[in-house]
């Protein structure tokens, strides 16, 4: 399948303080993201995962190396708006990414910036709000909504721009468990509709839904592969102070007790199915 994002030897340097000290947040990352895939990027704070995300749509530009989105170099200023329309982004804080004091106006913000016809904007806004189950809150002010609802509005705002790829930068970090569940369900739904999903998170349980898991550590890609293969490397993952998903831990413990749990069981449903059919 075609690649939507190609990253070649990406190095990114931050200017830390007024003394001119620099910090390398990314130290040479090579990645290819396939169209229609669901990739989870996991890492601790400071592992460079958010910096990587912001490099994917030209919000940050590489110090070294190149990032291609749909064939366009992110450094190419003529195409920066094509890039950002192709790769939409949902941020962590639901409060700080809503622009307008009315939900539907906020969802319309992106399409308005693209210069789309008013009737088409109206259609897209209604559709996007319906997709995230926020249709009945159209005329509400964001500050009356819960965190999860605000985050759903933010997702609708990106969906209305019809992106091919959506980058979620820790979208559930500031939400309660209920809001987290809602957002994950919407992300699954969007992926099933053919949108390429890149989910940045530090929740292992969210990563098991992806069809590819990338673990970042100190600006490098530590592990990259299908979730079941990545989570086999339990020791390596633990050595960088990350946890493996609960079901992988349970699987390992059961195996130690002599129950032959297959290694590819990483989600709750799979585990439940396995246990129910176990003889």
């Amino acid at each position, binding site marked *: 399948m075609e690649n939507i994002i190609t990253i070649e030897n990406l190095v990114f340097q931050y200017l830390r303080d007024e003394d001119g000290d620099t910090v390398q947040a990314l130290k040479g990352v090579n990645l290819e993201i396939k169209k229609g895939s669901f990739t989870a990027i996991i890492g601790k704070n400071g592992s460079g995962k958010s910096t990587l995300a912001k490099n994917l749509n030209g919000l940050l530009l590489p110090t070294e190396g190149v990032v291609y989105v749909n064939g366009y170099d992110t450094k190419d200023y003529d195409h920066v708006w094509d890039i950002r329309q192709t790769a939409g982004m949902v941020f962590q804080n639901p409060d*700080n990414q809503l*622009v*307008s*004091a009315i939900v539907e106006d906020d969802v319309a913000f992106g399409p308005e910036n693209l*210069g789309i016809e008013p009737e088409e904007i109206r259609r897209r806004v209604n559709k996007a709000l319906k997709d995230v189950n926020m249709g009945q809150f159209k005329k509400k002010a964001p*500050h009356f909504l819960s965190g999860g609802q605000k985050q759903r509005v933010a997702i609708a705002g990106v969906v209305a*721009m019809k992106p091919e790829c959506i980058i979620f930068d820790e979208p559930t970090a500031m939400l309660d468990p209920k809001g987290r569940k809602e957002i994950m369900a919407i992300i699954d739904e969007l992926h099933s509709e053919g949108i390429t999903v890149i989910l940045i998170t530090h929740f292992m349980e969210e990563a098991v839904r992806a069809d590819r898991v990338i673990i970042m550590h100190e600006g490098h890609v530590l592990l990259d592969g299908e979730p079941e293969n990545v989570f086999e490397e339990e020791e390596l993952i633990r050595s960088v102070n990350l946890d493996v998903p609960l079901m992988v831990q349970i699987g390992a413990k059961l195996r130690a007790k002599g129950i032959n749990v297959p290694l590819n069981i990483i989600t709750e449903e799979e585990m439940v199915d396995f246990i129910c059919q176990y003889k």
Partner: protein
Amino acid sequence: MIRDITLGQYFSGESLIHKLDPRVKIIGTMLFIIELFIVDNFLGFLVAAVALGTVIAISKVPLSYIVRGLKPILFILFFTFALNIFMIQGEVIWQWKFLHITKEGINVAVFMAIRLFLLIIGSSLLTLCTRPISLTDGIERLLSPFKKIGLPSHEIAMMMTIALRFIPTLLEETDKIMKAQQARGADFESGNLIQRAKSLIPILVPLFISAFRIAQDLAMAMEARCYRGGENRTRMNEMKFKRRDYMAFALQTLFLGIIILEARLF
């Protein structure tokens, strides 16, 4: 609670006045203010008051609601009234030590009080019947002809929109910071005025920092959503003058004529 505050003082409704194009309402309000300064006798005020009363009646905003909005400005009203009544020289009708009231004083004081009263009610009717967002849209459109001489009309409107959006967010933030400081033993209630003002510093400094952080986040989110200023931007809610807007405009012009005529004749 702090999040229930109403912004501006919009009174939601479906009346004809509410439905009018914001531009018509802004222009109408401006015309009304100008008219109040054209008027130079009490009969003129009577005409203006009747017109304003009619608009209020159509808008279906309860009178009590409008009067409540007057309260904060009552002080200014009394202050100007007192100044006028005591300061104007002329035929003295009452005197006590250095204070004196003149016939002209009473006249001017009442005149000015009515003018201020009508002015405040007239302009508050604009914010009562127009959603803050449509108001900023209207201002953007009205200022757009001045773009040619370098007035950033889109940017001004965008700033107002964002300010409206973030008032509740910043209020919540203030609430949070206040509680956090109170939990650390901060005292905002006791002491004299200066001490109390000083005790606000531990609230204001974190508030400013968090406002900058929010601004940074928001700027990034806006850029990610392809915001690049007003160029080539379309609007979901296009503003189009409808028949009722033209009618309102015609009535406003007619009324301006009446007021000028009245001021000339009497």
